[in-house]
C-alpha cells in the first residue's frame, strides 16, 4: 500500500518535472525568438535602454565573446576594444569603441553594459589617435619606471593602440 503511494508520488513528481522542463523550454523558445535585451549606458548618455537586439559581441578582458539570448549569466570586465551590436534583421553590426567598464549578463537574457566612455567607430579621428599615441609614448619613456605617471602613460598607449586597431590604422 505504502509502496503504491510512493510510486504514485514519484510518478506525479516526475511528470511535474517534465511539465516544468517543457514550460522552461517553451519560455526559452519564446525569449530566443524575441532576442536579448540590451542596456548600454554611459554616465552622460544612454545609448540603449531596454533595446531588443540579436547579438552583442563584448570585448572582455580575457577575450571577445558573443552574447545572445539565454546566454549563461556572466560578469565580465571590459578591456579597451570594439563592442559590436547586431540588430535583428541586419547584417552589419553597429560598432562602438569602449575604453573599459563592465558587462553583466543576467539569467533573463538582459545584458547591462556600463562604460565610463564609448564612441562610435565612425566618430574616431585617425590623426587624433596617432598624435595621442605619440604623446603617450613620449610620456611613458620620460616617466620614471613604476611611477603613477608611467602607469597612466602605459594605459594611454594601450587604449590608443586598441583604437587604432579598431579603425584599421597601424601605429
Amino acid at each position: 500500500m505504502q509502496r503504491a503511494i510512493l510510486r504514485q508520488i514519484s510518478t506525479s513528481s516526475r511528470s511535474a518535472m517534465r511539465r516544468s522542463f517543457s514550460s522552461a523550454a517553451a519560455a526559452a523558445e519564446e525569449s530566443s525568438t524575441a532576442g536579448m535585451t540590451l542596456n548600454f549606458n554611459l554616465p552622460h548618455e544612454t545609448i540603449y535602454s531596454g533595446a531588443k537586439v540579436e547579438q552583442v559581441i563584448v570585448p572582455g578582458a580575457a577575450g571577445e565573446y558573443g552574447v545572445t539570448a539565454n546566454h549563461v549569466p556572466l560578469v565580465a570586465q571590459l578591456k579597451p576594444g570594439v563592442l559590436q551590436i547586431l540588430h535583428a534583421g541586419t547584417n552589419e553590426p553597429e560598432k562602438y569603441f569602449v575604453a573599459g567598464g563592465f558587462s553583466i549578463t543576467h539569467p533573463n537574457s538582459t545584458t547591462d553594459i556600463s562604460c565610463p566612455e564609448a564612441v562610435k567607430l565612425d566618430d574616431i579621428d585617425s590623426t587624433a589617435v596617432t598624435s595621442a599615441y605619440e604623446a603617450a609614448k613620449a610620456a611613458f619613456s620620460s616617466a620614471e619606471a613604476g611611477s603613477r605617471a608611467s602607469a597612466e602613460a602605459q594605459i594611454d598607449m594601450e587604449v590608443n593602440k586598441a583604437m587604432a586597431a579598431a579603425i584599421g590604422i597601424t601605429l
Partner: protein
Amino acid sequence: MALRASVQRVSRTLPRLMAQAGAARGMATEKQIFNQIQSTKNIKKITSSMKMVSAAKLKGDETRLELAKPFNEWTNALCGKPVHLDDLENITYEELPQKTLIVPITSDKGLCGGVNSFISRSVRDAIGKINAQGKECDVVIIGDKGRSQMSRSFPEKILRTATDIQAPGNFNLAAALSAELTAAGAMNYDAVMIVYNSYVNAAVYHQYYKVIKPMAVEGEGESMVEYEFEPDVKSEIMGDLYEYMLTSQIYYCFMDGAAAEQSSRMTAMENASKNAGEMIDTLTLQYNRARQARITTELIEIISGASALEG
C-alpha cells in the same frame, strides 16, 4: 532786524535739533530710512538675479540627473534600495555592519536653503544610533558646508573632506572621489553609507541614504552565485566591480545632490527677494511719514516765525 535774524537762526537750527531729538528717541531719520531702502533694493536685485542663475543651472543639473539614473540602474540589484530619511525617529540603522564609512554629500557654496543642515542632522543622528548599537563608524565629507557644520559636532570621526569641487560634476570627478575614499581606507570597512539629498522637483527634495557593501566572494552570503566570471578569478573581478559600483553610485548621488542644491537655492533666493520687496514697502511708508513730518515742521516754523514778526 535782530528779531528776524534770531528767528532765521532758530528756523535753521530747529529742524536739525528736531531730527537729533528724533534720533535720540530711537526713531530713524529720513536720511537713514532712505539709505536703508537703497541697500534693500540692491539686495533684492542680487537675490533675484541669483534666483535666475540657479533656475538656469537647475535645468542642466536635471538633464544630467536624468542620464545618470539609467547609468546607475544596474547597481540597484546589487546594493538594495536607498532608504528615505523622512522621520529620523524611525530610522534605526540596524542593518549596518560593524564598521561603516559614512559619506555625506553637501555643497561647497552657501545661500542654498536647508540642504546641508538636513544632511548634517541626519549624519549626527546616525552616528549617535550606530555608536549606541556598539558599532563603529567614520566620516568622509564631500562639500565645504558639511565640513563646517559637522566638524563642530564630531571632529574626531572625520577622516577627510573633499572641497572646492568644480561644478558641474562628471564621471572623472566621481572616480577621483572614490579614489579618495579608497585612500581613506574604504576597502577596510564593512560598508559605505552615502547620505545625500534626492531631487524630486523644483520645490521638493528628500534625504536618502544608501548602503554599499562589498560582495562576499565565498562562503554563505556569497553574492552573484549563478554568474560566471571572466577572467576567471572571481575575487579580483568582484573587487574591481565593487570599486566601479562605488564610483557609479557616488556619481549618481552627487548628481542628485547637485540638482537638489540648485532647486533649494532657487527657492531660498526667491523667498529672499520676496521678503526684501515687503521690507522695501514698509520702509517706504516710514520714509514718507518721516518726510511729511519734516515738511510739516518746516511749515510750522515758518508760519510761527512770520506771525511772531507781525506782532
